[in-house]
């Protein structure tokens, strides 16, 4: 049998996977140009060694501050900042979720007619276009300094995130059970609550807890541009070179993020 095949068949050619760019001239040329560009790019980076040395000594200070975080001397400011951040996070997550669910449903092509779909996708695109800090600056201009601007920012950003992923999740669920519910003569709202929501619920809960986590971290960032929360306190501490206070705040943020991670994990396990 074996002898038979080797005798009657010419040897197979050697095989290697086809290259991405077939033309070898083009392939090597592109590689060369890319390498040259990288070299040029690095040579234009001016590295100021004096500045780097100063930076190293300052980061050493920060590091030392971290080893002796000072929770006590500015405890009231820290406490207010943390509570404000937590409030902003909770309110923004709740508001963001409440608005995301209808928009997410409307952005699922399998559930709605084209005009509704386009409208909701448009809203999502708008909410996703700008980075949180830019939205925060806009809302600070609109409603003034303070946590309201932060809540608006985080709610707005949450919509872009939650509604988009929810819509994608809905479009990916099995279509046949939906057909079956339609075939019983159920209304659109019944279809959504009886057939769609149960199928996307675990994922939705996962997304909400993840967004809560993001909102918590973002609440520290939007404070830097005046939108309230622990970020404002952190900004003040850094500008006063109070690295030990800053270290205390950072440790608290780390603790909070870690706690939400644990909490989110527990919720997700329960809801499988």
């Amino acid at each position, binding site marked *: 049998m074996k002898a038979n095949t080797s005798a009657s068949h010419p040897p197979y050619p050697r095989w290697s996977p086809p290259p991405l760019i077939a033309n070898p001239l083009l392939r090597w040329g592109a590689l060369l140009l890319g390498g040259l560009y990288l070299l040029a790019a690095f040579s234009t980076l001016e590295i100021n060694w004096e500045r780097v040395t100063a930076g190293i000594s300052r980061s050493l200070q920060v590091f030392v501050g971290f080893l002796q975080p000072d929770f006590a001397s500015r405890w009231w400011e820290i406490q207010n900042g943390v509570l404000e951040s937590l409030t902003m996070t909770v309110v923004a997550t709740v508001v963001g979720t409440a608005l995301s669910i209808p928009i997410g449903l409307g952005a699922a092509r399998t559930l709605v007619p084209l005009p509704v779909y386009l409208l909701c996708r448009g809203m999502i695109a708008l909410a996703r276009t700008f980075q949180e800090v830019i939205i925060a600056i806009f809302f600070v201009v609109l409603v003034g300094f303070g946590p309201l601007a932060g809540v608006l920012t985080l709610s707005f950003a949450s919509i872009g995130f939650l509604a988009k992923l929810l819509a994608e999740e809905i479009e990916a669920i*099995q279509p*046949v*059970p939906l*057909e*079956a*519910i*339609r*075939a*019983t*003569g*159920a*209304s659109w*709202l*019944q279809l959504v*609550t*009886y*057939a769609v929501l*149960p*199928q996307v*619920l*675990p994922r939705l809960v996962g997304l909400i807890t993840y967004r809560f986590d993001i909102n918590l971290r973002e609440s520290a960032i939007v404070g830097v541009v005046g939108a309230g929360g622990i970020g404002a306190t952190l900004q003040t501490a850094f500008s006063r070179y109070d690295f030990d206070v800053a270290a205390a705040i950072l440790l608290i943020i780390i603790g909070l993020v870690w706690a939400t991670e644990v909490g989110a994990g527990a919720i997700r396990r329960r809801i499988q």
Partner: protein
Amino acid sequence: MLRLENVTKQYGSRLQALHPISLEVPAGQVLALIGASGAGKSTLIRCINRLVEPTTGQIWLHQQEITRLPPKALRRVRRKIGMIFQEYALIERLTVMENVLSGQLGSVNFWQSWLRRFPPATITAAFELLERVGLPELVDRRADTLSGGQRQRVGIARALLQNPNLLLVDEPTASLDPKTARQIMRLITELAEERGLAVIINIHDVPLAQMFAQRIVGLKAGQIVYDGTPQGLTPNELTQIYGEEDWSHARDSESETKVAVDA
């Protein structure tokens, strides 16, 4: 009871899935729809409850023209048409009872369905059906923990809880073993007989169709090429429906599995 007049379906601009189809199904008749993959069987039964919109033609249920109805009236007619699927089409994360009760969504309002407050009579009927299909002890099991045969029984209970006049069944046994397949077919046809329902069953298994249906309609490329009794389905007719093949042999191997199952 059900009447189709020159129903056609065109997907997109080119694909003509159904050429003008005219068909009449009296109450109480079990009709098996056979035909090769892509012949248009699923399309045809989905046109009847307008999960797929027919392109032209009329469909009448009793004295009502389904093809003309506005959305609200269409939902009312759909309540009287039960549907059973090859993939069972249960809501995986809901319990058996919730899945069965979904057959009555059309007759409760939104809040009743959201809070699962179905009328007591509906719940009694659901219990009776679950017992009838042989799953009385699985009421609160989640649908995704069931076997294929059990799922299909839940699907049957859901369709029958609608108190339909007409059952549309799309390949109910294609994912089941031969013995379960027969049990499911027997269950569907028995229930239909008890309640005097008209049934249209899409099915690939010709011997099974011959065993349980009173009438067989063969579909080929969107056209009816056979309409008659199960006995009249000769190898000649099968060639007409499915194309050239050695049918006598296919039948032999089928009867062998029959023996194996019954043993």
